[in-house]
């Protein structure tokens, strides 16, 4: 090892010490530790929660987990989530663009959208049985429905809030109508469109879990519900954790894609 190598390594460790081992990290870890501690105390020292598994029991359940089985359930749920999400994107994005871009489209479409929107998506579960015979289609419809509104609303909002000077400037540069949409309006609305997609993917996870709990057709929601019926509560909590993790990962994926799409926003 040469001297410069040594210097580089020591610099590396200095950086690590400075950026990783510091009070901020300690406090962050403490937050998690305190949460687990509060959980344990509530379970062990209060009557109200004594039936709930401790963190330790949940951790122990991790080793009894049938990995192959759980991955199949994750995969099933994920397919439903992504299916609904992409259908929501394919239908919601153009609709949001139309409502945001054209006043006539706004008057024609927006009131109906606004009328249906306040109904919580879960309230649609009974009706979906009438739409589709196949359970798989019913579930995907529900995830689609969950994704639809956040995408439409944020696309619409993003487009109507574009700084007026940008399209005006573009007009002065002689841009065509189509060019205006593709090269000015959509890029300008992109940040909010991605916000909509992030909200949407969160709601699709909510919908898939609710639908699977009722439908008994596999998936993580079903998996959690099944362990509830056989009273294996450590597994229930584990399942909840996995659902949360999947949701978070999907959200991160959208962030990563967003950063690739909008290089100009993360230059610092």
């Amino acid at each position: 090892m040469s001297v410069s190598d040594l210097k580089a390594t020591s610099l590396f460790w200095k950086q690590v010490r400075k950026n990783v081992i510091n009070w901020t990290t300690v406090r962050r870890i403490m937050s998690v530790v305190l949460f687990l501690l509060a959980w344990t105390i509530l379970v062990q020292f209060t009557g109200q929660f004594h039936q709930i598994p401790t963190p330790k029991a949940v951790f122990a359940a991790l080793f009894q987990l049938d990995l192959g089985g759980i991955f199949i359930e994750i995969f099933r749920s994920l397919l439903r989530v992504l299916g609904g999400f992409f259908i929501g994107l394919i239908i919601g994005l153009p609709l949001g663009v139309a409502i945001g871009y054209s006043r006539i489209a706004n008057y024609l479409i927006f009131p109906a959208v606004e009328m249906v929107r306040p109904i919580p998506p879960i309230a649609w579960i009974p009706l979906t049985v009438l739409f589709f015979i196949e359970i798989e289609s019913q579930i995907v419809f529900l995830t689609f429905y969950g994704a639809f509104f956040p995408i439409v609303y944020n696309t619409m909002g993003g487009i109507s809030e574009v700084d007026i000077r940008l399209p005006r400037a573009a007009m002065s540069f002689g841009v065509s109508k189509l060019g205006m949409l593709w090269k000015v309006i959509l890029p300008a609305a992109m940040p909010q469109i991605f916000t909509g997609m992030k909200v949407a993917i969160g709601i699709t996870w909510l919908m898939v879990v609710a639908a699977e709990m009722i439908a008994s057709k596999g998936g993580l929601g079903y998996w959690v519900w099944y362990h509830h019926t056989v009273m294996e509560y450590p597994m229930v909590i584990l399942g909840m954790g996995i659902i949360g993790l999947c949701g978070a990962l999907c959200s991160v994926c959208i962030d990563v894609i967003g950063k690739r799409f909008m290089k100009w926003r993360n230059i610092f």
Partner: protein
Amino acid sequence: MVNPNNKGEVIFEDVTRAVQTKKTETIVMDHCSFVVESGKMTVLIGPSGCGKTTIINLIAGYEKPDRGKVLVDGVPVTGPDWERLVVFQETALFPWLTCYDNVMFGPLATKVMSREEADEQAVMLLEKVGLQDFMDKYPMQLSGGMQRRAELARALINRPTVMLMDEPFRGLDAMTRELMQEYYLRLVEESHSTHLFVTSEIEEAILLADKLIILTDKPSRVKHALDIDLPRPREASILMSKRYLELKATVLEILHEEAVKASKASGKADIDIESGLRT
């Protein structure tokens, strides 16, 4: 400044424009008439909020007059057109495009020149405004002054018949502003466009103008038009010349008269304003 085609003459003919707010209707412009001569630099000056931006919007075609006509080369303005180009107050660069791509936007949209020619022009203009090392940066990575310079390049590459500058250097610090004026002077003296420059700074107005149009406070009308006969090419040092000072005194006097009238009209403490302006 020569203008071979003799194009880009803007005529404001008896224009009236009112703006409706929720309850009231404000007359922003009342029977306003003036001519922007082709190939020259005309500067509009007036108190802030006197409707200067409205004039720009009318010529650009973003707004329509309620009465009267806005003619460019004898043809009434019906809507925005790339022959009339606006540089806005504060930056309106596309934040998702690099400096270079911003400049290339116009030529690629109109396709009046080939990509190679546009590229050559863009690089040349960016060099001229001192941004050759920042071509690949996004607007957010540039300082305020750099953004304005990029904007100048983005406008000039289109060789518009009429350049409409709506207080483009507003909000810049004094040093940067002076530098911008010098960049701009150099670019203007090479261009064949008609320039209409709106400002509320007397110094800037006289430094840049061939012809100075002084507007009244709301509703705006032409108070006075004045030829600025300072020699070209100009530099900031001209601000020390005797002729400049004479012109400035004239302009100040006219503006002062207007300010007094405005304050009397609105019934404010006009004595304070008068004595304040005299010192």
